[in-house]
């Protein structure tokens, strides 16, 4: 059966029926962007919640994180698929269940799921900033919110960027869960191809296309990790720092 994998004719047919793959690829990219935006915003809010003094906010964040980290993504996505339309019907007071697009389910699914992980990344980032930083800011008269905005959060960037990109990478791969609900994404189209033609080339093609998105992200993670360990170099501030010596 495996010799089919090396059959040039099958490859030829696969490469000439790429339209479905590209459609899926484009759709997957859209879900990635929307899901990433949602998970970043929600994850940052929850991450900040988990470091505040308010017990209520900390509890909200904790419960959310534990729930989403300890239940499987496919189950969550099935739930949105089945329950979402009825929930919307109830909320909007519509006569019949309101259909949720595959795009919405996908973005919501990976967005909510990865928000939990991103929240943890943000929390560890904030906790890595020494207490003295908040004290210094408050001794100058900054409010807690200002201290977070100007002093604490900017310092976390270096620490959190590598694990954040890692989350983005996982989010890309996890969009393939959409295939389970006939989502029109890359994996779904690849699977369609394989069922139609019986050629395993379809899955390999899907792998290649996921790899094309994920590998640069993996390289970015490595580069960011390396950069986060470097000392910053002195900045040139026009009119204030001495002009750098010109090469003769």
């Amino acid at each position: 059966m495996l010799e089919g994998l090396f059959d040039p004719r099958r490859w030829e047919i696969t490469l000439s029926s790429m339209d479905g793959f590209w459609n899926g690829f484009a759709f997957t990219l859209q879900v990635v962007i929307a899901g990433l935006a949602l998970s970043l915003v929600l994850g940052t809010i929850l991450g900040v919640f988990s470091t505040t003094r308010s017990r209520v906010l900390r509890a909200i964040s904790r419960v959310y994180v534990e729930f989403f980290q300890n239940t499987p993504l496919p189950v969550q996505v099935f739930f949105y698929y089945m329950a979402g339309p009825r929930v919307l019907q109830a909320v909007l007071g519509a006569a019949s269940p309101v259909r949720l697009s595959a795009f919405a389910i996908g973005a919501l699914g990976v967005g909510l799921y990865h928000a939990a992980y991103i929240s943890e990344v943000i929390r560890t980032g904030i906790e890595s900033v020494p207490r003295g930083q908040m004290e210094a800011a408050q001794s100058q008269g900054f409010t807690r919110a200002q201290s977070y905005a100007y002093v604490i959060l900017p310092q976390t960037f270096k620490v959190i960027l590598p694990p954040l990109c890692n989350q983005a990478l996982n989010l890309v791969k996890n969009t393939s869960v959409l295939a389970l609900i006939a989502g029109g994404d890359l994996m779904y189209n690849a699977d369609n191809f394989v069922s139609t033609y019986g050629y395993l080339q379809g899955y390999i093609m899907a792998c290649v296309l996921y790899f094309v998105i994920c590998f640069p992200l993996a390289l970015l993670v490595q580069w960011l990790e390396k950069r986060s360990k470097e000392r910053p170099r002195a900045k040139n501030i026009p009119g204030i720092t001495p002009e750098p010596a010109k090469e003769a």
Partner: protein
Amino acid sequence: MADMIEIRGLNKYFGDLHVLKDINLSVKKGEKLVVIGPSGSGKSTLIRCINYLEEPTTGEVVIDGTALTKKNHLEMARKYSSMVFQQFNLYPNMTVLGNLTLAPIKLQKKSKEEANKAAMAALERVGLAQKAGEYPQNLSGGQQQRVAIARAMCTKQPIILFDEPTSALDPEMIQEVLDVMIELAQDNITMICVTHEMNFAKQVADRVIFMDDGQILEEGTPEHFFTNPQNPRCKDFLNKILH
């Protein structure tokens, strides 16, 4: 001279631990006060109560006639006090210049040019103008603390609190920081300094207080502490740090 700071009946507990016991203390405008005492005596907690980094359990801290409260303490800090920490606490994500201009720009609403100018003047005074574009972690401990002092000067509050400013420094860097503080003491600002540097006390302090076990056990001029301390614990302490 009027009182700049008045502390009345101040008690501070950390859980069951009674860290400050009924402290009463006035500091005049422009006075240079040095606080000495063994570690764990409550001296850091005392000055941290003056800018409300620690909230008093009972009693009050009055700055220029206004009592500090949970509500007004940030506004009071902006107006009256800045602090220099043992661990410097410079903002590592900003250049030296950025550290000095953050509060003037964001809190005092100064223009960037104005803030830069004041910052450079402060850096000039601590001898680090050439380091304006450098990041804190590329500076020595002594240089970082001098930047921190410049940051405190920049916001021009009438009170500067020093919490063991030289304790985290290598011995060879202590003097450069003390020199800056001695020079700063020429200004008409109120300085409260927790330190073990008795030579510094001798040169700038109008008054020294000795704390142990959460209480002020002795106070007087630096001269008095060198020649005629009364309290046995104070004598003992001075013997240890002066030899």
